[in-house]
């Protein structure tokens, strides 16, 4: 079966991203397909490579990236939500006259159409949020 996943909250402050990760991992391990993981609202903060959680805690961004590496997951950060909140890739940073970017390597920034497409193409869409 093909699943789409939406993540609405940032890492650590809410459990949403942890739960979405656990669901995604379990689905992949059962042989299902994850069409896309779409990060919206504060969920875009999951895509920052600058987080340094305490050593005795999980690193949620790195967990997502490892899962993406292993299963060729499509991790998409919403461009409008990300710009508002300061999550930028190199080209968005340049285009907006900023002097730095912070997107993590396995995440890509794209438009809201990618969420609708995930809804259309997936057999089930699950939303994890506050």
């Amino acid at each position, binding site marked *: 079966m093909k699943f789409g996943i939406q993540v609405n909250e940032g890492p650590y402050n809410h*459990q*949403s991203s942890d739960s979405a990760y656990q669901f995604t991992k379990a689905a992949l391990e059962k042989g299902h397909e994850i069409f896309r993981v779409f990060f919206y609202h504060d969920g875009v903060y999951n895509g920052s490579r600058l987080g340094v959680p305490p050593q005795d805690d999980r690193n949620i961004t790195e967990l997502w990236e490892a899962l993406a590496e292993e299963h060729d997951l499509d991790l998409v950060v919403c461009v409008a939500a990300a710009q508002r909140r300061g999550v930028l890739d190199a080209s968005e940073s340049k285009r907006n006259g900023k002097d730095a970017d912070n997107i993590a390597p396995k995440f890509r920034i794209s438009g809201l159409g990618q969420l609708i497409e995930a809804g259309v193409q997936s057999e089930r869409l699950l939303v994890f*949020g506050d």
Partner: protein
Amino acid sequence: MAMLHTVNKSPFEKNTLDSCIDHALKGSSILLFEDGVYGALKGTTIAGKVLQAMGDVSVYVLGSDLRARGLSEESIIEGIKITDYPGFVDLAGSHANVQSWL
């Protein structure tokens, strides 16, 4: 096939579970996870509403979120089924659609 409802908030803090139950059709299922697992506790101010709902809907609760919060299986309303993430994935697949009550 019926709908799977998911609830991730404490019923003592937010109206999410209340609203979910009020909209859940007969034959649908409700999965409690994250802080939503508190809705599965026996002897609370919301337990009566959950018990009554269980006449029409199946209620599941995520074991890993119960254990994280120190809640034992004995503290859970009888008839609520404890599941795990593979079980959550199966429930999402075996129901027609999923509504996340955020």
